């Protein structure tokens, strides 16, 4: 069986260094398997998050050879084994220990977003009617597993650390899911502009490229949201017109 060498960042916020581990690679193995094997055999206290091992839960985000990824969906057979494989925690978030970072900021951001507010029910029994075509695009946004890889890779957070002015691509996806929800009647456009910092996004599409759920974050969520914001604030004709149309049809 082939062997692979891993260099894994070990340490906490105070100090960290790469430790080297060598392992035999079996058929079908993913990076997370290797990490858990290393944990069981050589480093019982190696900190790592995981749950489903199937790309469903978004726990095992890390940077493998510098690329943000879910470790459970990253096949060893897709990695060149002639050089050591570098495994690091997500860089945009404060390090707790080894591969585990403090992602609590994300949970705080979500709390501040105005929650779902449905229109009154359509039917007497308190239920609604929606056509599948009308929910397809929102279902795309609701595929998000909150892995925060898009947050990790976005330069506004990663390089410029504008966390207090910018909510990040994950939450634009979340807001898009609410704003385009056929039942929702809340208006989040002012927040998008003023507190959520959608203007900081310059559509580099890095977020879309890393999304393991293949959500087209920029084209399907951010750009339409930007347009809605622009409509509301900058176009007096459309603004007037908008008064006579429901927000959902725009």
């Amino acid at each position, binding site marked *: 069986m082939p062997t692979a060498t891993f260099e894994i960042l070990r340490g*906490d916020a105070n100090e960290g260094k790469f430790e080297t581990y060598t392992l035999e690679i*079996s*058929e*079908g*193995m*993913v990076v997370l*398997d290797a990490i858990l094997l290393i*944990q*069981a*055999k050589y480093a*019982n*206290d*190696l*900190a*790592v*998050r*995981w*749950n*489903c*091992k*199937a*790309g*469903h*839960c*978004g*726990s095992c985000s890390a940077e493998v050879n510098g690329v943000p990824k879910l470790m459970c*969906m990253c*096949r060893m057979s897709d990695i060149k084994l002639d050089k050591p494989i570098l495994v690091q925690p997500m860089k945009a978030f404060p390090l*707790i*220990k*080894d591969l*585990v970072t*403090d*992602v*609590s900021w994300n*949970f705080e951001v*979500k*709390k501040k977003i105005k*929650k*779902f507010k*449905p229109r009154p*029910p359509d039917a007497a029994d*308190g*239920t*609604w*009617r*929606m*056509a*599948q075509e009308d*929910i397809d695009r*929102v*279902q795309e946004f*609701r*595929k*998000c*597993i*909150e892995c925060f890889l898009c947050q990790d890779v976005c330069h506004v957070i990663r390089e410029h650390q504008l966390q207090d002015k910018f909510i990040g691509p994950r939450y634009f996806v979340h807001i898009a899911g*609410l704003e385009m*929800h056929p*039942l929702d009647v809340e208006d989040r456009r002012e927040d998008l502009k003023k507190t959520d910092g959608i203007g900081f996004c310059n559509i580099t599409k890095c977020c879309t490229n890393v999304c393991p759920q293949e959500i087209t974050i920029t084209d399907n969520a951010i750009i339409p949201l930007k347009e809605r914001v622009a409509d509301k604030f900058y176009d007096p004709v459309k603004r007037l017109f908008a008064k006579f149309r429901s927000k959902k049809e725009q």
Partner: protein
Amino acid sequence: MNAYDTYNYDVLVIGAGGAGLRAAIEASAHGVTVGLVCKSLLGKAHTVMAEGGIAAAMANVDDRDSWKVHFTDTLRGGQYLNNWRMAELHAKEAPDCVRELESWGALFDRTKDGKILQRNFGGHKYPRLAHVGDRTGLEMIRTLQDHGIHQGVEVHMECTVITLLKDGERIVGAFGYERERGRFKTFQAKAVILATGGVGRAYKITSNSWEYTGDGHSLAYHAGAELIDMEFLQFHPTGMIWPPSVSGILVTEGVRGEGGILLNKNGERFMFNNIPDLYKNQTSDNEEEGWRYIQGDKNAKRPPELLTRDHVARCIVREIKEGRGSPHGGVYLDISWIKKKISNSEEHIRKKLPGMYHMFKKLADIDITKEPMEIGPTTHYMMGGIRVDPDTQMSTMPGLFAAGECGAGLHGANRLGGNSLSDLLVFGKRAGEYAAKFAKEYGDGTIDEKQITDAAKWALEPFERDKGDSPYDIQFALQEMMQQLVGIVRNETEMLRAKEHLGLMSQRAANARVVGNREFNPGWHTALDLFNMLTISEAITMAALERKESRGAHFREDYPDKDPQSGKFNLVIKKDADGKMIIRQEPIPEIREELKQLIEEMK
């Protein structure tokens, strides 16, 4: 008060899956303060992995469906060992619970007339599972999570409870550690709800994550509460088996609900060979009728692939044992064959089962729209658990409630697919409501400092040992042993051996050594989890030895038949005054007359 961070709530909910979140939302809606504790980050609990759907008799697809049919399906599936009252409440209340999710923002797949779409699943007479492709659990947990964070529930993420706190016989709080820094936390509460999920980590091949170490079962048991039905552990018929690193990962029953068929290495559809009497009236005996059923023909009977999980898993094991298995020791599950029936089959499969398509493509290099999957049974779901009052969900200890997979009663000897997610909603809600009522009625209990210092001392002992085995080695040994000796096919000789092993492993676990410090140290966490895993393994083994028949998920090769006498009791486990595990038979509660008639009518 003690030296540790202390929090005070009216209701403390332990577990943030579907059951815990629903309970927390409900308790909070009743105007009490609520704390919520979970081992992982919020939204990562097992519920997120559920794929197929939520069972609720909304009759959106087939108007012949009703709570009555759902009720009788659930009892038939559970081989009549279910708590009938829970099954009744569940069948009646599930539809409203699903609609409530929609009012909180969930977006289920739709019927042509714009209602919530429902799909076929094993053991359900009519299409009954509300779903979103094959990621229903994600939709459910995210909806509850997003709703819950606006309800004033205080969440303690990555915090593990290691003991419940008692004031006499009443539960008045919990004590645990937070993973990040390894610091202890004390939670005082007027009522405590356990919603900790299942036990599958005690087995080698499982669809369950590291979290499923039976904590709630074990916490309740050691506090003095009763467990019930512990012999009934569900092995899901279709887990991935190849490559080895993915073995155990679940392949949703939705594949069969959409027309997937099971084949042995000779290409034979072996499920036709053995249809149990209980289901003869409802199961088709030919391919053509089975396909019509999948297509929604109301007069067709369902294909045998959609029989209950216990039965399908056993048929698969039989095929493998008799030499008709696939190269890697499983059988084939094929959905690609529907290309013979519909023109756009590839697109249809990708639309209906996107997660499965993606997963096989990525992890096994298999395109399920073109070729069959190789699958085999995987440890999946615990029917047994904390014994609760069917209406209030209170355990046998005052102030302690349980809901979701760690509670028991609804599913009897075998759970129907989809009946768990609905269970979480119906009984999570009830637990929240009654825990809030309990909290309002009774004041604060008294926290006993000694219980806290004892637990803290116990938790830190592994750091003091300089000899002893690695907790992972012990965990692997336990998983291997339970898989071999108390697995799908059981017998007395093997289970007696298992008991001996468990004794030895308990000693090893008590001497396990951990390296490193208290900061986010999974080795330490595993060492503590072992205690719970061993407790529930002992309970499973004891109950499985005691039930001398084969019924539902419990199959004994030394007693291969159903025994009518054994069908009259549940097995109840409790810790006696000397700390020993004891087991007793308890007659099944007498079922209400009108429901009895209903069962007869629907037979």
